[in-house]
């Protein structure tokens, strides 16, 4: 057990070193959420604000938006992991690791730990940028801690899923499909506009897809409004993703590498 932790720490150091040497990916993963923030607050914000002002408990649009942007930050962060894992798998180094007497899972846990740390940094920076855009959260210490907890859980869950996708994909193009998942689903959720303003089938989908309860919970925590049953549904989805991702990743990693 202690060897597994030691090897995971070694792999974590390896991944952090990669990140320090090639910060480009991190900047891109951080750039997308900031760009969306700019687009939705700076460009669409004026029009959306007018709509929001008439809603009960309306407030500024930027306050509504931040939780969705936070989720996308976590998503983009996880998609970097899908690419990094895939790069590892398609290069010779993985064969070396597999023929060494190390805790095998450490190759994957190193990626997950690195991704979670990275995501916390990104999320903090995104919140900082949002404050510059006029975001005014109402959360107390408890609200912030709960937000951090949910961001961590989400990052953990999405990263395990990303690891599995990275393992399953034959090349970087395949691994890139994960970005689609974390990019499209938020648009069909409560991230940008409330689901009750949507129409028919889209509304039904947006209300029942996994990201909506997570976003609603984050929003409630940050703005100090009631969270309701969203919290438990969000935690359940995250736990489900984490377990599914872990089990899938482990099975993929254990099978014999392709000839």
């Amino acid at each position, binding site marked *: 057990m202690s060897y597994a932790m030691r090897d995971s720490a070694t792999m974590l150091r390896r991944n952090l*070193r990669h990140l320090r*040497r090639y910060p480009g990916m991190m900047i891109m993963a951080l750039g997308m959420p900031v760009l969306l923030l700019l687009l939705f607050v700076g460009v669409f914000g004026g029009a959306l604000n007018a709509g929001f002002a008439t809603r009960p408990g309306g407030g500024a649009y930027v306050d509504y938006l931040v939780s969705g942007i936070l989720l996308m930050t976590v998503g983009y962060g996880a998609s970097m992991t899908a690419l990094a894992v895939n790069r590892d798998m398609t290069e010779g180094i993985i*064969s*070396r690791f597999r023929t060494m007497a190390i805790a095998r899972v450490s190759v994957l846990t190193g990626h997950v730990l690195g991704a979670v740390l990275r995501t916390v940094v990104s999320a903090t920076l995104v919140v900082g940028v949002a404050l510059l855009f006029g975001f005014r959260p109402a959360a107390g210490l408890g609200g912030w801690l709960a937000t951090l907890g949910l961001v961590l859980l989400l990052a953990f869950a999405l990263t395990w899923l990303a690891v599995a996708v990275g393992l399953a994909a034959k090349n970087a193009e395949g691994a890139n499909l994960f970005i689609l998942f974390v990019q499209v689903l938020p648009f069909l959720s409560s991230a940008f506009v409330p689901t009750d303003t949507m129409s028919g089938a889209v509304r039904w989908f947006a209300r029942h897809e996994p990201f909506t309860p997570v976003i609603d919970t984050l929003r409630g925590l940050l703005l100090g409004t009631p969270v309701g049953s969203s919290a438990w549904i969000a935690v359940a989805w995250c736990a489900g993703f984490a377990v599914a991702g872990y089990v899938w990743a482990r099975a993929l990693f254990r099978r014999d590498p392709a000839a």
Partner: protein
Amino acid sequence: MTTPAIAASGLRKSFGDQVVLDGIDLHVTAGTVFALLGPNGAGKTTAVRILSTLIRADGGQASVAGHDVAAEPDGVRAAIGVTGQFSAVDNLLTGEENLLLMADLHHLGRAEGRRKAAELLEQFDLVESAGKLVSAYSGGMRRRLDLAMTLVGAPRVLFLDEPTTGLDPRSRQTMWRIIRDLVAGGVTVFLTTQYLDEADELAGRVAVLDHGKVVAEGAPDELKRRVPGGHVRLQFADAASLDAAARALGEGNRDESALTLSVPGDGGVRSLRGLLDRLDAAAVDVGSLSVHTPDLDDVFFALTTDKEAVR
């Protein structure tokens, strides 16, 4: 009799309906170099991948350093080092960082890891490029770093899958020297190669693999003896001399256009002298003479079927 470094019997492996290993037996004595020789696609790499626990065999048994590859893979992994055909280095790290990563994964202490890394950088002539990213290394440097990384764990059994494929002659010589030094230090080396001179140069025993089967095994000299092909080639100045020599010797393969006559013979001094005496007696003027001993090339071509030719 000590435990063999590698013992395998009846190893089989198929990918889909393609049979890659069709029941091979291997026996490698500790402290020796064993070469698995074969053309591309013969199954060499698959054999290494099975013996190094990377993939599982469909049938048969194998043990490495006394551990069964299927039942105790971690025991095998702790004893082996593998350097494959495709370099297993981390391109996003420097050479030194790659070595330190290996040291950490072998649970060497910090100081011991640094000492080992410095020693290997020195030994593999990589000191100057230690701080450079591996992505900027040349092919030969990557291969050396690759092997250096494998040696961090001081393996007792070393698998080298085509270690010099694609290397320039100088890097190849360096690699051979390193391998000889390792064997002198007691390491067992299991080498795959498609270069016959490499097997001849390094290995104490050679197995020739073709279409998933071991078609011949023995010391390089034994294998060479099994294959006919030794001859003395006589070169003449004109067709008249060639005719005279052919009449005088009464045997041999003549090549009219090249004006040569190939006479079977092992190239020993006594038989050469006899040959020349006979030619002198017939007053034949020989332009030049060369002795051809059978090399592993002859063995190789005699024993392996050429897929291209079949097609």
